[in-house]
């Protein structure tokens, strides 16, 4: 079931949370709403779920072409997973998952045996069968979130919405759970939208990433599209570490110093990812930006170098492999040259 949000506006008092946002989620896709806090992503998700109403007179929400703007959340058939789980603490895991089935009107309600069967199937799906009779307080964070997911899936929702589902978990569990969510999505193929502020999470598991900033959608695309072709400086900066150079400071470095993506606007800014900064030993007469190695952070698969440009004294981050670092025998305070493999520039009125 596809989801469409058309021209959604929402303000809380003087604060604008969404200013005319459009969103299209194709049927069966896993879509990430990615943005910094305050960008409006959670508000958009809550409006899709019906937990929040868009400003009167503003846009519509459609599920599979059918207008649901005025359908209350109770009847919208949406599975919603909250950041802090919102489990019913006085119920066991089993009863939490069964809740959505037990509250149905008697003619739609499955029999006790059918409910038990379906709940057990879901608990198996989220790998929590043996904990069915525990209370939420006896579970870990990751287990709680899986219960919340099973509970949302029990009502056989048309769409699944997750609000920062892994935000309250520690890094390792978060990584496990998001891969698991991806696998689950491949099994059930439910149209799913999840909100996150973690670009790694969004880029890793989503079919499509919607990047939001300041109440607006900045860019929509597959993870590769948005990473390789960011539409604005904001997206470029949000999706990873970045170095910013002023165009004129590069002019002195010589033609071989960097890759030019077409004509540059005078006074423009040039953006480079740390892994696109090449570090070579200094040799007189060679093209490149002279810089001094100030700090080496070598714990991890890649070595992260902090370098200071000789002319502007501005700092640059570079990521090179540790083998390469050892081969060059660089030590702190060595003079080196920087070359930029892949750059991106935006007109300056896009200033950040």
């Amino acid at each position, binding site marked *: 079931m596809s989801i469409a949000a058309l021209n959604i506006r929402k303000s809380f008092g003087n604060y604008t949370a969404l200013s005319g946002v459009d969103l299209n989620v194709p049927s069966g896709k896993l879509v990430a709403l990615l943005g910094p806090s305050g960008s409006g992503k959670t508000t958009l998700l809550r409006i899709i779920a019906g937990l929040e109403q868009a400003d009167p007179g503003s846009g519509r929400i459609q599920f599979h072409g059918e207008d649901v703007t005025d359908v209350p959340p*109770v009847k919208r058939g949406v599975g919603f997973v909250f950041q802090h789980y919102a489990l*019913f603490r006085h119920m066991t895991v089993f009863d939490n998952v069964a809740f*959505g089935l037990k*509250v149905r009107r008697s003619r739609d309600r499955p029999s006790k045996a059918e409910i038990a069967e379906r709940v057990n199937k879901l608990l198996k799906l989220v790998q929590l069968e043996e904990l069915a009779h525990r209370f*939420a307080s*006896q579970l870990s964070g990751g287990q709680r979130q899986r219960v919340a997911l099973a509970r*949302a899936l029990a*009502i056989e929702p048309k769409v699944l919405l997750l609000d920062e589902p892994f935000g309250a978990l520690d890094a390792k569990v978060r990584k496990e759970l998001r891969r698991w969510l991806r696998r689950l999505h491949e099994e059930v193929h439910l149209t799913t939208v999840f909100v996150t502020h973690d670009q790694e999470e969004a880029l890793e598991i989503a079919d499509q990433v919607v990047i939001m900033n300041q109440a607006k959608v900045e860019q929509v695309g597959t993870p590769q599209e948005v990473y390789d072709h960011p539409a604005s400086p904001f997206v470029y900066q949000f999706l990873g570490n970045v170095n910013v150079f002023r165009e004129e400071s590069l002019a002195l470095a010589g033609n071989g110093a960097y890759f030019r993506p077409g004509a540059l606007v005078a006074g423009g800014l040039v953006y480079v990812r740390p892994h696109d900064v090449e570090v070579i030993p200094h040799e007189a007469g060679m093209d490149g930006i002279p810089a001094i190695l100030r700090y080496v952070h070598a714990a991890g698969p890649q070595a992260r170098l902090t370098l200071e440009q000789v002319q502007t004294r501005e700092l640059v981050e570079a990521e090179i492999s540790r083998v390469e670092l050892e081969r060059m025998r660089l030590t702190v305070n060595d003079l080196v040259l920087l070359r930029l493999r892949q750059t991106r520039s935006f007109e300056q009125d896009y200033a950040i």
Partner: protein
Amino acid sequence: MSLFRQRRNVLPGFGLSLGFTLTYLSLIVLLPISAAFLKTMGMSWADFWHAVTGPRVMAAYRLSFGASLLAGGINAFFGLIVAWVLVRYNFTGKKIVDALVDLPFALPTAVAGIALTAVYAKNGWIGQWLEPHGVKIAFTRAGVLLALTFIGLPFVVRTLQPVLEDLEPELEEAAASLGANRWQTLTRVILPELLPALLTGFALAFARALGEYGSVVFISGNMPMRTEIVPLLIITKLEQYDYRGATALAVVMLVASFALLLLINLLQKWSAQWRAQV
């Protein structure tokens, strides 16, 4: 966890503070209670039995426990509504309403009794309208119930308020998105979450009502067999210099209320079994 394992607690001062707590409780609570028991020991079993099972005494037990339980129940129900309104909604004068809740705490109970009597008596503001319909409040058991309800209200409201404030709005949203209507959300999600606190409030209101004396004596009329509460009976015995008879009644009240409070506490524990067992 045993007393002795606590000794290695990282928080300092356990020994000192526990010692203080025990001494304090002994002086303030245990000592007077033991005195009541000791005084009663002077009676023979037959005298004791006679003193605590007379028909007039039995009627007083029924009224005291019955009216206190009922008052606790009424307060649990209406106190929940008051707390709900105070936490959930914003309206002008909310601060004043909130302050009004504490009034039964602060008012000298005799003042409350006199005021209630004046209002509900035959010629009082409300009494004059009820009397023609055959409804009598002042000087009847209904009056006792009214006074006990009045003094117990703040206990329920004040125990529920913080719990209600901490109740996550997400719980209701989750219930709604799962298809539960308002009534189902209330009865299956909200009330079970509140039940432990509600029982605590009920127990406090009940205990307070059981010991209440000042406000009841004015409105009840104190007719033996009909509107006489146990505390009043005790005073009567004291006035007749029957100290042993008075303490015998006190002992019965103590044991009975202790048993009831224990029961409520067990209920409360059962209703909160889902809390973290760490």
